């Protein structure tokens, strides 16, 4: 019974922690949209705009990645730790 509760709580927590994916999605969408506008306005600056956008996107992804790391910990590390304690 305790095992089942722990496993269910870990799975629910992992699902909740992936809500963090919303923020980077919105942010990167804005960034890519603005980059498209910039390229449409000045097509000759495509290279520098694209590399700056990729850099900014990868940095903006960080918070989503934190949520993902927490989800990975909840799915693979925490259950074995707690089940060993029982």
């Amino acid at each position, binding site marked *: 019974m305790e095992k089942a509760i722990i496993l269910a709580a870990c799975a629910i927590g992992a699902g909740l922690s992936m809500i963090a994916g919303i923020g980077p999605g919105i942010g990167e969408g804005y960034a890519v949209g603005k980059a498209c506008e910039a390229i449409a306005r000045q097509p000759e600056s495509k290279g520098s705009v694209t590399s700056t956008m990729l850099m900014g996107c990868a940095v903006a992804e*960080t918070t989503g990645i934190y949520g993902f790391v927490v989800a990975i910990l909840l799915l693979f590390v925490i259950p074995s730790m707690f089940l060993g304690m029982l």
Partner: protein
Amino acid sequence: MKVRPESKKQIVAEYIVTAVQNFVKSNMGKVFEFFSPFIFSLMMLSAFSSLSSLLTFKPPTSDINTLLGWSILVFMMIIYYKIKSMGFLGYLKSYTKPIVLLTPFNILSDVAVPVSMAFRHFGNIVSGVVISSLVYGSLSSLSSLALGNLPGFLSKIPIFELGLPAVLSIYFDLFSSLLQAFIFCMLTMVYIKMAANVKE
């Protein structure tokens, strides 16, 4: 090796070296040109570690210890250049900069630098590994569901695993790992340049 390059190998090698030196010079300034071997070796180590997942190895960058090692190395260089530019007392004083009350937050934001660098790289590579392993598992169960009832070796043919994972692999293995190697080096250069605070 000659002063005027003749062989193809030497021309390619000289092209790579000048490209890396120009890249580092344009990002960190002429003073830090000597950083280019370090930056390029960091980039190649990260890129080839991540690309080894193409050959079905477990990439070394999907282990947090590798990334924490690299980012702590970078963190020590940042501290070294901060102490060099401000002096040791000035460095300690810089933690109490706007007001003394903010000292814990300054320390926290300093510690967040290596942690965020390591976790960004780690999370990107591990998400690729996890998602592609999930896809491989589901595809193999799908093809055993479709062909499992056939007699003999016909039931072992992986029809669904043939081309579909390659599309994912282009994004997760090629694009993501090369981009993360680039980002790691870019952030290293930016942080060290900010710490050294050199006037051009």
